């Protein structure tokens, strides 16, 4: 499996838009979209948990080339809290209930659009990493918090 590429992010954006999928980039991949200089392996998507969105996600994933059997499709449609996909052209994590964020709609209100990519606000990215309590997140948080400070300074006051 090759590394995740910009072209593949564009495919997610375009295919999910066609299928009306409600989602946000979250995690380190989202921070990178916002300009955070770091490395990661795959993309994490915070997806709205609803039957309609679940069906749209499955249709979109199949169009992207993910090989989902009926059982897997049903799980995604039903909305597990976390789904890890390595059966497609790139690795993708679907997070239906990220730690530290109460509701999708709350994150959507705060989200940032980066060249057409819907991205969680840095405050939500940081909140989810703080709440996860993982060693690797704990280690990345000081630099991420510093980046937040920098990023907010670069943004117009009405877009923070």
């Amino acid at each position, binding site marked *: 499996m090759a590394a995740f590429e910009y072209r593949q992010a564009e495919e997610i954006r375009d295919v999910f838009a066609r299928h009306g999928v409600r989602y946000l980039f979250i995690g380190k991949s989202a921070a990178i979209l916002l300009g955070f*200089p770091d490395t990661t392996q795959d993309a994490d998507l915070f997806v709205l948990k609803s039957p309609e969105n679940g069906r749209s996600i499955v249709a979109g994933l199949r169009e992207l080339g993910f090989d989902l059997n009926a059982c897997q499709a049903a799980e995604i449609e039903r909305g597990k809290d976390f789904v*890890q996909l390595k059966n497609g052209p790139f690795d993708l994590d679907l997070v239906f209930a990220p730690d530290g964020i109460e509701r999708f709609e709350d994150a959507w209100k705060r989200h940032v659009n980066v060249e057409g990519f819907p991205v969680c606000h840095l405050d939500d990215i940081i909140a989810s990493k703080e709440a996860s309590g993982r060693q690797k997140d704990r280690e990345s948080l000081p630099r991420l918090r510093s980046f937040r400070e920098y990023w907010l300074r670069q943004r117009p006051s009405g877009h923070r």
Partner: protein
Amino acid sequence: MKPGETKVACGAIPAEWLAEFEAAERRPLKTRFRYAFIRTHKPVLDDASYRSFDTMEDYRRWCAKNLPDWLGYGRV
């Protein structure tokens, strides 16, 4: 600067990080992508093509039980 001191500029942002943030901002998104996403094999985690968890707590527990500590997925 004395040995052991951390150079701090622009408020509380360490100067080295600030320079990295500024350099990243000058690069187009496509370029940032090219250098941000890397591929290395993560044992256990990468050994299944599909996994799902009813709750995040289930996922965290699975990570703690099955993944090597050095991957950093364990809780602290």
